[in-house]
């Protein structure tokens, strides 16, 4: 499993992943429909902000925020936990383990390879809507330079959460219940449903100490004038600290879990 063999196999794995995404395009559509929650929340907050703005959020700000949130969710999507649960239960993980490449790398490529197709529908749609709302609610150019970094960090954290929860299915038979809990926490604390700056005091404190906000919240905050430049840099730094910490933790969880893998079914 040297780094070189992995690097050589990456393009092929990406191709396979892309072909799979095309083959299961109906499933992709279902997935996209299930990520329309920001648009529902937009409708709700628009009603709330009709008479007077909430914090610094007027109707235009809410529209920008939730459209961007919709895009970022498409770009940072990962679903390896479901795959892993299924493969551990049916024993299909054995095939992955036989290949001379770390299963984690192959999950990553499969998940990443579907992104172009997923964003092909969502991004233009939301971009047009964003253009109609107007650029006045967006941050100046230098903040945009941080976006690729924040997006990469956000995707990595989401992916690592998936791998960690998927690895838990090696310890218990199924970790889908944990996935449910994770998703509930994510929805509340990431800014996915509600911009974190609208949280009242103590809840806001909780957000600061949890990783969820760095998954989808941070990239959106960066381009909607939520932070000063110094604060933005600090947050991206914390985000990548989370990436490193989670990579170590997930690696341990996966390594130890694998020893318990019994390859049932088949």
């Amino acid at each position, binding site marked *: 499993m040297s780094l070189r063999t992995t690097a050589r196999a990456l393009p092929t794995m990406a191709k396979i992943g892309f072909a799979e995404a095309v083959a*299961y395009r*109906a*499933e992709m559509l*279902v*997935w996209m*429909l*299930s*990520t*329309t*929650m920001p*648009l*529902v929340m937009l*409708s*709700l907050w*628009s*009603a*709330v902000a009709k008479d007077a703005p*909430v*914090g610094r959020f007027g109707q235009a700000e809410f529209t920008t925020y939730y459209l961007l949130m919709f895009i970022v969710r498409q770009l940072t999507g990962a*679903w390896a936990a*479901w795959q892993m649960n*299924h493969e551990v239960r049916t024993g299909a993980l054995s095939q992955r383990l036989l290949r001379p490449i770390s299963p984690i790398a192959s999950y990553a490529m499969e998940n990443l390879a579907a992104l172009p197709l997923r964003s092909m529908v969502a991004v233009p749609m939301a971009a047009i809507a964003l253009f109609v709302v107007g650029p006045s609610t967006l941050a100046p150019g230098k903040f945009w330079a941080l976006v690729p970094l924040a997006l990469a960090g956000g995707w990595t954290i989401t992916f690592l959460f998936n791998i960690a929860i998927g690895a838990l299915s090696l310890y218990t038979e199924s970790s889908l*219940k944990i996935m*449910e*809990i994770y998703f*509930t*926490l994510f*929805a*509340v604390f990431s800014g996915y*449903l*509600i911009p974190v700056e*609208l*949280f*009242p005091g103590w*809840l806001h404190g909780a957000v600061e100490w949890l990783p969820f906000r760095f998954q989808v919240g941070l990239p959106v905050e960066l381009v909607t004038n939520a932070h000063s430049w110094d604060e933005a840099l600090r947050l991206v730094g914390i985000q990548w600290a989370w990436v490193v910490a989670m990579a170590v933790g997930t690696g341990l969880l996966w390594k130890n879990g694998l020893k318990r893998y019994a390859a049932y079914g088949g």
Partner: protein
Amino acid sequence: MGRYLKLLWIQLRSSMLLALQYRWDFLVDGAISLFSAVAAVAPLYVVFHNRDSIAGWTAPEALLVSGWFILLDAIIDGAISPSLNSVVDHIRQGTLDFVLLKPADAQFLVSTARFQPWKLTNGIGALAVFIYSFRQMGRTPELLGAFTSVGLLGISTVLLYSLWILTVSAAFYVVKMDNLSYLFTSIFDAARWPATVFKGVVRVIFTFVIPLALMTTYPAQALLGRLEGTTVLFSLVGTAAFAAFARVVWLRSIAKYTSASG
């Protein structure tokens, strides 16, 4: 008819026995449901932290809607989705053949295949939310309204079940669908808000296409004594039509079933 009642009893009993076997699930499910009940209320808390009332709903009134949301969620998790999730597995693996071979209606068999009684403990959480929000309002529910809301609970269960049947029918056409239940719950999630808060297209969708309004908002309005009789009547007729439609779609989809590998 008597035969189907007997069948239902047999299926229920086997689920009960299974549930007794996994007694620890009672604690795990209990903990998870308590947690999700709190999480269900959190967004509400944030919104009403910024406003006293939204579209005519005060915080305790909106909390009532959340209570119904928690209750219906318990019904879905306990009685509807376990069975229908297994249909998706059957379709994928081709084992639906065995169900179809049995001399009883296939929809009945698959819909009663599994119950998770422990999940119904969520109902207690919903009751606590009801009591709390009425105490906050400093009043009691209307008696007639309480009866109406129980009736509406029945209607919305039928409605949810029909929606599930429609979702499952989709699995006959697109086989790889691990996340059908995920789609369902993420759309149902919007039911925690009073439907009248939404505007425009979203509101039309939640009233007529995916009638979330009927499931949580109307029962809450009934408890508050604000629901009109005609709305109840329309709900009844609409749900009957919806259930009939789901039945037709199911029959058509199952006719398309060609069995998978095996």
